[in-house]
């Protein structure tokens, strides 16, 4: 029962982006299309799951004083792996994500989970925690991607959705659109939370 809870908490209740406001740089930068958002989300999920497993396995052997550098090396190793494989298998996606692939290293969600969860819990639970948080992060990226691509380009995954009459709101796929969208989406989630508490 609690294992399921560990998995689902990352998706909505403790969603890293909407509830904890972590890892916002990649969320804003690569959510200009659904495809970029999905690619970034999956890459970060892979790193999150793998680093959670490894850190949970080595947690008893790592002296507490140097744990942060050790965690960073583990994370950086997986980021290098995903960076090189993405460059090999999906060169177009790798190019449009740009420096945000190597920057997964400094994504605060990953170090945050290592510090707050994987360094203290068993492997199985850490795996579920990483997977849940990764899916929550991917969900956030895709939600923003859908809003921005639909309004800014009238399409989803590059397929036109809104017909020929729709005039694209170009600002939505430009940098300011990212800030405005995340502002309103965060406001919406706060409103949901407030309403739930009142009832």
């Amino acid at each position, binding site marked *: 029962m609690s294992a399921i809870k560990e998995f689902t908490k990352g998706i909505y209740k403790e969603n890293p982006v909407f509830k904890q406001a972590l890892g916002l740089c990649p969320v*804003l930068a690569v959510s200009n299309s659904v495809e970029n958002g999905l690619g970034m989300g999956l890459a970060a999920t892979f790193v999150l799951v793998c680093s959670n497993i490894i850190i949970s396995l080595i947690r008893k052997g790592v002296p507490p004083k140097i744990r*942060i550098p050790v965690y960073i090396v583990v994370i950086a190793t997986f980021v*290098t792996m995903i960076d090189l494989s993405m460059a090999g298998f999906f060169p177009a996606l790798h190019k449009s994500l740009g420096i945000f692939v190597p920057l997964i290293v400094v994504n*605060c969600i990953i170090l945050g989970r290592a510090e707050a969860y994987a360094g203290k819990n068993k492997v199985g639970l850490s795996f579920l925690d990483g997977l849940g948080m990764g899916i929550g992060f991917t969900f956030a990226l895709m939600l923003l991607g859908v809003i921005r691509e639909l309004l800014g380009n009238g399409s989803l995954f590059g397929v036109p959705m809104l017909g020929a009459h729709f005039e694209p709101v170009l600002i939505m796929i430009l940098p300011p659109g990212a800030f405005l969208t995340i*502002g309103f989406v965060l406001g919406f989630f706060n409103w949901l939370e407030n309403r739930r508490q009142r009832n």
Partner: protein
Amino acid sequence: MELKSLFIISIGSIFINNFIFSRFLGICPYIGVSKQLDSAVGMGAAVTFVMTLASTVTWLIYNYLLAPIEANLFYKLFSLKQPPDLTFLKTIAFILVIASLVQFVEMVIQKTSPALYKSLGIYLPLITTNCAILGVSLLNINENYLFIESIVNGLSAGIGFTIALVLMAGIREKLELADIPKSMRGIPIAFIMAGLMAIAFLGFSGLKL
């Protein structure tokens, strides 16, 4: 010629490709530390300092240890047949260098100037996981900047970050008094403000240099 290209790089990093408003690097400290003007100035100064230093050090590391060129130190010291290509290690190498650099800067400031440490000290540990620092190091390499150009780029990216942070802090101090719907208070309204400022900064992209 040299001076002109440096000028173009610095204007580009401060205004046109501002780290916050157009590259989306360093958003976490931007939202986290922009509540008060004093701490925004302190954080901006600390980030600018570390960014300049990190640009310098990572450029040297990349070009003398990792890149497969004649100047590679491993190639020279161990008389290898050809320069080794260690560029795949750059993410790991850079993040470790930045982490130790921040620690080192913290220790030096603590020993030499307690007053400065008091005002900058609390921000320094936060800087390691600031993606703007690693971001500027990687950008310098991607853009093939020369040594001086990298330093100038690091410095101006830091100045651009500070400008964005200080402007935001000024606005957020006033926002405290505004009558905002309850759900939008705090972070959401800060993002809306950032969006409006980003629209203003979009104007700089018309600048032809």
